[in-house]
């Protein structure tokens, strides 16, 4: 690990009030990159600090009142696995919409020859070949900001009805 990497690892603790060692302080004073990162970390540690704080006592009272009033219902909780699955479906559906839109542009509709084999080389099959880590990385980079801002002429997911989305997903299963 380089001195810069060691310093980077320590910065959150330093921002919380710990002290640099003399060696770390000397490196920080002589390394513009580390100094720039340190300014960012210090600023990040202060973000929201000047806001009127949320009131834990008030929040606690409200939460307890709601817990007493509303019976447990697991369906309203956000489980980690379903969140991951939802992201997968969002990524898959967005990829499907994109490919369908590209197909519509580059290949005009033509009569379908029932003797032809099903299309191959789809985005889905490419995704299936990825390792879990690679898939994680691809999906992780798929922002809802990006999904929500499709290219001109390409429908966004938010433009699709539930039925349309279902059809898009089914089109990848056949």
């Amino acid at each position, binding site marked *: 690990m380089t001195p810069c990497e060691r310093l980077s690892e320590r910065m959150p603790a330093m921002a919380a009030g710990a002290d640099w060692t003399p060696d770390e302080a000397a490196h920080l004073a002589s390394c513009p990159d580390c100094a720039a990162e340190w300014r960012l970390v210090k600023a990040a540690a202060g973000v929201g600090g000047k*806001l009127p704080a949320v009131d834990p*006592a008030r929040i606690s009272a409200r939460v307890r009142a709601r817990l007493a009033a509303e019976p447990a219902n697991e369906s309203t909780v956000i489980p980690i696995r379903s969140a991951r699955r939802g992201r997968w479906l969002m990524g898959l559906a967005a990829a499907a919409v994109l490919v369908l839109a590209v197909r519509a542009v580059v290949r005009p509709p033509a009569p379908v020859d029932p003797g032809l084999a099903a299309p191959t080389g789809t985005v889905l099959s490419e995704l299936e070949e990825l390792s879990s880590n690679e898939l994680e990385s691809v999906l992780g980079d798929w922002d809802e900001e990006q999904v929500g801002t499709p290219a001109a002429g390409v429908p966004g997911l938010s433009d699709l009805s539930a039925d349309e989305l279902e059809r898009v997903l089914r089109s990848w299963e056949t």
Partner: protein
Amino acid sequence: MTPTDEELVASYRAGVEAAADELVRRHATSLGRFLYGSGAPAAELDDLVQEAFFRAFRGLDGWRGEASFRSWLYRIGTNLNRDRFRRQKGRQMVPIEDQEIPDHADPEGEAGANEMETRLLDELERLPRLQREVFLLRAQQGLEYDQICATLGTTPGAARVHYHHAVKRLKEAVG
């Protein structure tokens, strides 16, 4: 001796409601600041934090302790904030200078820090969501990478890469 979060959760599940108060006292403010940095408007922080705790407590049966309570809570808060973003399809930032900011003894130093924080907030808004969240969980909340993974459902390697890219872009933009 101060009880751990996990001990407080166990107490709460055993019927000690005051344990829930202590968990809220420990984490409500920092969760609110994280959500604010992640794009939640200041006016909605109370509701978001309240909802995150409500869902966390009500969903404790689904929490098996693989991640810390804090990671579990932040995970729920993050998902709520993402849902809010999707509903609104955009971000409505409330500039920090519009908030009720208390007086401080070092106005010049505070002004400089506020300016840096405001610039940082502006640039955070432009980062991809995961980069923004990883950066804040690391730099603002001081979480270790394994805790960040548990919160955001990613891998340690990916979290480090997101942090590195976030710092690189923020350095270029904020300096």
